[in-house]
């Protein structure tokens, strides 16, 4: 996983006076799923569009497997598969026709097996306009991977998909990664990023504020683990109980919630206390800090670490 497939160096993109991307650098390695996270306007789509050769960078250097997307667009199109945020297919094109059309331009045989894999076989004679938004996104993904590109750029691939389609798509992404495809995934869905990506970069106002594995990023936050406890007689619903390593103690109607820096001793102390008070445990939940919480923390502080 050490071979660098995508290299972005001091990349900058400006629209009139607005700096959309401000000298960012990162690398993506072979077989890696790399997440680009950030609020709207953070610069994710500008970065992807320059990598796709749709826009010219205003500074820095981009490289995909030794190809400069701006200078060598003809070499680029067989190296990358792209699922755009807006699907970009003619409304009248039929599903099977679209597969044939794009495969022909990539010089490969149509991949009807992908239509079956993504549950589109029944719709192969339907026009694009007749598909649901989930089916349209699945078709866009099928077309993006049909020519087996070594690099896949996905912009919000699961937006609007139901749970089953989402799971299927995650499975396909994992399979592609296992087969050696390098994937950049731009998403607003933190759970998806946490589940699917090997590393993520969080962009804010055109700059990368943090980069690393989801675990590394969540570990650099406040680091508080949420422990929620529900008991039969609510003995924890008292404001004067104290437990080791607990920083915050909240109560809701059913659960007592503790934020702890070290959940092991906290849970042990809680169980001892419940037993000593003659109460009975109904439910205990331990939730480590999520990427979403860390993301919200970063974006709410404007990227200050």
């Amino acid at each position: 996983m050490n071979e660098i497939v995508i290299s972005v160096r001091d990349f900058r993109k400006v629209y009139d006076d607005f700096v959309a991307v401000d000298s960012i650098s990162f690398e993506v390695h072979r077989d890696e799923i790399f997440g680009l996270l950030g609020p709207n306007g953070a610069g994710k789509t500008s970065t992807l569009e320059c990598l796709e050769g749709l826009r010219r960078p205003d500074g820095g250097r981009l490289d995909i497997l030794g190809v400069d997307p701006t200078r060598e667009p003809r070499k680029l199109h067989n190296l990358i598969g792209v699922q755009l945020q807006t699907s970009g297919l003619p409304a009248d094109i039929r599903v099977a026709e679209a597969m044939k059309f794009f495969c022909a331009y990539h010089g490969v045989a149509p991949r009807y097996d992908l239509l079956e894999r993504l549950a589109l076989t029944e719709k192969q004679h339907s026009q694009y306009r007749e598909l649901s938004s989930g089916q349209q996104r699945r078709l866009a993904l099928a077309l993006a991977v049909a020519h087996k590109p070594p690099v896949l750029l996905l912009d919000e691939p699961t937006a609007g998909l139901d749970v089953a389609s989402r799971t299927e798509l995650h499975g396909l992404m994992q399979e592609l990664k296992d087969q050696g495809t390098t994937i950049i995934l731009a998403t607003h869905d933190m759970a998806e990023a946490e589940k699917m990506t090997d590393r993520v970069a969080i962009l804010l106002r055109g700059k990368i504020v943090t980069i690393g594995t989801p675990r590394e990023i969540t570990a650099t936050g406040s680091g508080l683990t949420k422990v929620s406890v529900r008991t039969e007689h609510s003995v924890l619903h008292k404001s004067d109980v104290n437990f080791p390593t607990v920083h915050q103690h909240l109560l809701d109607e059913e659960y007592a919630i503790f934020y702890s820096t070290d959940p092991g001793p906290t849970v042990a102390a809680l169980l001892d206390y419940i037993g000593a008070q003659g109460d009975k445990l109904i439910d205990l939940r331990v939730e480590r800090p999520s990427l979403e919480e860390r993301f919200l923390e970063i974006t709410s502080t404007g990227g200050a670490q």
Partner: protein
Amino acid sequence: MTAFANHFAFEFKTGLRNSNLLLMNYLFPLGFYAAMGVVMTQINPLFTATMTPAMVVFATMASTILGLPGPLVESREAGIYRSYKINGVPAASILAIPVLTTIFHTLIVCVIISLTATPFFKGVAPANWGAFALITLLTAITCGAIGALIGVISNNSRATVLWSQLIFLPSMLLGGLMMPLDMLPQSVRPVSAFLPPARAMEAFLGLAYNQETVMGPMTSAIILLVSGLLAFALAIYLFNWDSRNKTRRGHPLMALLVLVPYIVGIFIGW
């Protein structure tokens, strides 16, 4: 070649599947032709002399200048060209294929008109069918290229309508379709000299019907050819993949260069 053939087949079928294109390619020109054949030949029996070329030119304008630009703009606005670019579809194919398929549809309608005008409406048949066919093809190519150019320079569908009507309406009034150019006042004839359909009518009448014309028929045919090639070259040069990406080659007003052959034509004596 396979990719080009696939693309062509898809675009051709779109011309039949899409109700707007079906209207502009077939229903509108054939409906208008039938109405003119029934009504106009009774109001003005002299119309039969120019009916066939006039309806061929009308059908060509309907599908190319009125029908072609809108879908080009809509495809650009919908991000279809972005997706084409990423997948390696060349700009020339994006423009050439809709033009070619529209020409193909137009030629089908032109054949229907040419073969039915005489038996159904007593339209005068061409004296030279070979010249008639060549000028029909030339008119379709030129109008198709102008339609593509309008689609390329228009920022939205409203601009498309404006540009298309700027050519279509004067062409209907001053292009020799409804009445021969020699019946128009002298003062408006210079305007006709700038209209591709007027040039097409003069080429038809002079070369396919051996009639006297106001403008030189061969000059008109050459002007049509040169302006068609120029319009297509300008359309490729000014083509923009993406409505969100405002950086483009050349200014849209460069499209007016397509008038150069017509201006030269006036200087060399029509």
